[in-house]
């Protein structure tokens, strides 16, 4: 069972690495942060699989930290992005 779980983790990490190509290609900042979100979700899955394969209970806490970091990264991105375009959000809402 452990071999299968490690193999699945490797496959998911490969998918995450392929998704990172989107950071190179862009074209916008939002596409790049989406790629970072993929690292968050895929990283959690890979860490959980590896933790179960090795029987290491602490990896669940690592996955929890990754989940929090991915959420904070997305919110920080949106906050910075919306701060660049002041006033437009109010105008768009009132239309």
């Amino acid at each position, binding site marked *: 069972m452990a071999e299968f779980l490690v193999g*699945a983790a490797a496959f998911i990490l490969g998918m995450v690495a*392929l998704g990172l190509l989107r950071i190179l290609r862009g*074209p*916008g900042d939002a*596409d790049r942060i*989406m790629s970072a979100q993929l690292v968050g979700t*895929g990283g959690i899955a890979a860490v*959980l699989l590896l933790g179960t394969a090795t029987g290491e209970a602490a990896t669940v806490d690592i996955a929890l930290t990754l*989940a929090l970091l991915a959420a904070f990264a997305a919110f920080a991105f949106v906050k910075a992005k919306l701060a660049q375009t002041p006033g*437009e959000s109010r105008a768009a809402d009132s239309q």
Partner: protein
Amino acid sequence: MSLFLDLWTVVAVVAGAFFFFAGTVGLLRFPDSLTRLHALTKADNLGLGLVVLGLLPQMDSVAAGLKLLCIWLLVLLSGATSSQWIARSLREGGSES
């Protein structure tokens, strides 16, 4: 019983890995940012959910399984919220991306 649980783990983890594959293909191949956001947030959260469901029978205790489910719930909540915010920033950012 143990064989059945292992079979469940294999089936669910393979299905989860397939959804990660689908999410990556969507992120790379879809034509614009909003469709890519759609592919990423749906497929990957479902993939993680299937992986978590597959790992549940391998856990030692009920508490460890509940912790796994809590991680999935956190990812679902933050993913749903942040995808709405990213879509909002895309809409207000105009056609630059």
